[in-house]
């Protein structure tokens, strides 16, 4: 008990001394010091806020077997190593593209996430969507027609997701495996996807107003759907994961994540 009282007395003495000291300083200096402190904190906070909105995450999504994992390793290492199997977990990495290693100077690395395409692992995509700055939707140009419906449903779900619509996240429709002879062209794929999404739009909007499945609807009422109707930018490109033809994908990513 005595210790406590002693401590209290000492604390009181210190506070008195501090107050006396403060009162000695001319008021102008005091105000200047406080003003400077406030200004710096405000500036720091504003910088942090501005920096937070510019994330550098890019998502690689698409159906299972479309070539996302191969593309991921091509962008990172320049080779697809010994091949890949169906992914069970996402592949993440923050790196500068392999082809950009030659460039000098400090280039901002890209946080690339390869989300598994298997339908049972679909919830993983929703974990990553809030932090995405751009989405690359990979489509198998070789086996396109059998998977057209599933691919368009997946793309529809992405385009109507709340995060994507609100933040206007740009989407690249990447047609993979174009090194093969019988692969379809990107124009064909784009048209087919637009047609399928149009059908989906018709069947899903026929459901009542409380639509649990999709957050928003896309496209303009009364007109056939086209990718230009989306509020976020949707572009189409070609690539080949196996031979390393990924220039268009890299350009797209660098458009939104400045080096």
């Amino acid at each position, binding site marked *: 008990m005595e210790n406590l009282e002693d401590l209290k007395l000492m604390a009181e003495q210190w506070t008195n001394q501090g107050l006396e000291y403060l009162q000695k300083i001319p008021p102008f200096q005091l105000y200047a010091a406080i003003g400077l402190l406030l200004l710096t904190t405000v500036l720091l906070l504003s910088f942090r806020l501005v920096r937070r909105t510019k994330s550098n995450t890019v998502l690689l999504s698409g159906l299972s077997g479309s070539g996302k*994992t191969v593309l991921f390793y091509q962008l990172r290492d320049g080779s697809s190593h010994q091949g890949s199997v169906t*992914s069970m*977990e996402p*592949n993440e990495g923050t790196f500068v593209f392999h082809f950009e290693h030659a460039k000098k100077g400090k280039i901002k690395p890209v946080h690339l996430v390869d989300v598994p395409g298997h*339908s049972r*692992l679909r919830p993983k995509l929703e974990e990553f969507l809030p932090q995405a700055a751009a989405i690359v939707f990979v489509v198998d140009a070789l086996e396109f027609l059998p998977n057209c419906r599933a691919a368009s449903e997946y793309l529809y779900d992405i385009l109507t997701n709340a995060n994507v619509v609100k933040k206007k996240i740009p989407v690249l429709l990447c047609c993979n495996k174009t090194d093969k002879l019988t692969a379809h062209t990107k124009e064909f794929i784009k048209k087919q996807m637009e047609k399928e999404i149009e059908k989906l739009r018709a069947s*899903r909007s026929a459901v009542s107003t409380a639509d*649990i499945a999709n957050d928003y609807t896309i496209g303009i009422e009364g007109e056939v759907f086209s990718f230009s109707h989306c509020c976020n930018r949707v572009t189409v490109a070609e690539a080949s994961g196996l031979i390393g033809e990924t220039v268009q994908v890299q350009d797209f990513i660098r458009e939104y994540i400045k080096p």
Partner: protein
Amino acid sequence: MLEQLLIFTRGGLILWTCKEIGNALKGSPIDTLIRSCLLEERSGEVSFNYGAYTLKWTFHNDLGLVFVAVYQKILQLLYVDDLLSMVKQSFSEIYDPKRMRYDDFDETFRQLRVEAEARAEEMKRTKQVVKPLNGVKKQGQVSKEETKKSNGEKKDDEGKVSSVSNGNHKMEDDVANGKENSADNNNNNNNSVGVDVSKLAKLRSKGVRGRGGLRKADSIGSNKGSSKVEPPKKATKKNRVWDDAAAAPKQEEKLDFTDEHGDNGHVDVVAAADQGESMMDKEEVFSSDSESEDDDEPISDEKPEAKKKGWFSSVFQSITGKANLERTDLEPALKALKERLMTKNVAEEIAEKLCESVEASLEGKKLASFTRISSTVQGAMEEALIRILTPRRSIDIMRDVHAAKEQRRPYVVVFVGVNGVGKSTNLAKVAYWLQQHKVSVMMAACDTFRSGAVEQLRTHARRLQIPIFEKGYEKDPAVVAKEAIQEATRNGSDVVLVDTAGRMQDNEPLMRALSKLINLNKPDLVLFVGEALVGNDAVDQLSKFNQKLSDLSTSGSTRLIDGILLTKFDTIDDKVGAALSMVYISGAPVMFVGCGQSYTDLKKLNVKAIVKTLLK
């Protein structure tokens, strides 16, 4: 002979394949393994068969690696498990997340394989010497295995002699010894098998009765009948005759109680039933309450003693988070979890398999700091449950209906299930929902057995104002369905809902009739109606239905159960385990949930709510 051994990451990148045996594999066994076994939470199983191959696997959960060995199904190689664990150990020593190529591992692997094969041969030799006089059945089996093995070994030996360099004298000696031993033992086994065939027959009959249990009442009856004198035949009920050919015209008259002139006169034109929006379209609001508090108490009550002893060390470990999870650590937590699942009405078999799968995925993993073992196990189980209940393919029926409409044919849905689960009621609910979305529906009354089934559907049809196709009772349901579909094509209905009679999964003639209906009409959706009150029988029902449908299917595609309709969901409070059992055993998604007895009581399955209820 090993076909291939692969090491890959959980993210999908192949790190190493065995280059010695560069055989290209037929089909894509690895992808199929991942899709139909590992992602379906069956990783606790021993092996997986694909075509002519058998696959075995093991995980290294800490580094996120998967090791898979592929070999021919007919060879029963013993050393695979051993080899996989040795490979796992040695590879994890040289593994580096930055490295992508591991060519130096080839040499290590070759040595390991030679070691494992030698060890397996030794074990086989010791087994043969030690056990000459075991139970007859066991020996019978062992001899069969050994003949297969010796054949396999002979192939191995030839291969080895050609591929391994000649400097390896020790190996050749062992091989020679192995050959001699197996030749001797073959002779021994042949003699012993010859003597004990009669014993084998007796044991076999005993075995059947022992294993029969509840379901093989037939075999028990037949055994009893053979040993005792047959009791005098009582006057039994005349069995219902199912085939059209044998139906006597007199029986038809007696049983067909449909009132020719009656119905239309009695009932006035009923106003179209409009009970508002079907619950399929309404958003579900569920409360999110904190669940972590409840878990701690039951677990702590069960094992107070063990906790006191290891309390300080476990707390220390949970803070530092360095401990590698071992099987012994996981067992108590998994056991508690399994019991909790079983109290929620999950079938026992399914709960067991799930726990094994979670165990396989957590073993060897490092605990994250500040987490307890029980919370890690809970998290893993939750993820596994969400993965199982998430549908494998899209369950968007409206889209399918529109697709069928474009092809100018009706979309046919067949409702199957055991007796009394609610097929007719839920058929009406689905019809109501479809009608609300401006789809023209037609009902087909193919339940020609139960009295009143046709009238029941007729009443529903009148209330919903949709056409119904009926042919009365005692007709072949397959033919009725075919005519109904033709009628629908003629008058342009979008959807045909076919109601069938309830049948037990063991009833052979009824299951045959069902597969005839499905083969003849090739429906777009085979919907299995199951009630949420069912317990362990769900596993049996679904597996037998699927098996019978695949066995009795004619040429072309085999139609299995495409979807599940879960009924009587409002009667169970939180014992929602039947949904999990059904989805796990059949792989079909739950498309609808019936939660009441009026037309609007039809919902979609809310995966997150079910998982939360199961783990509460």
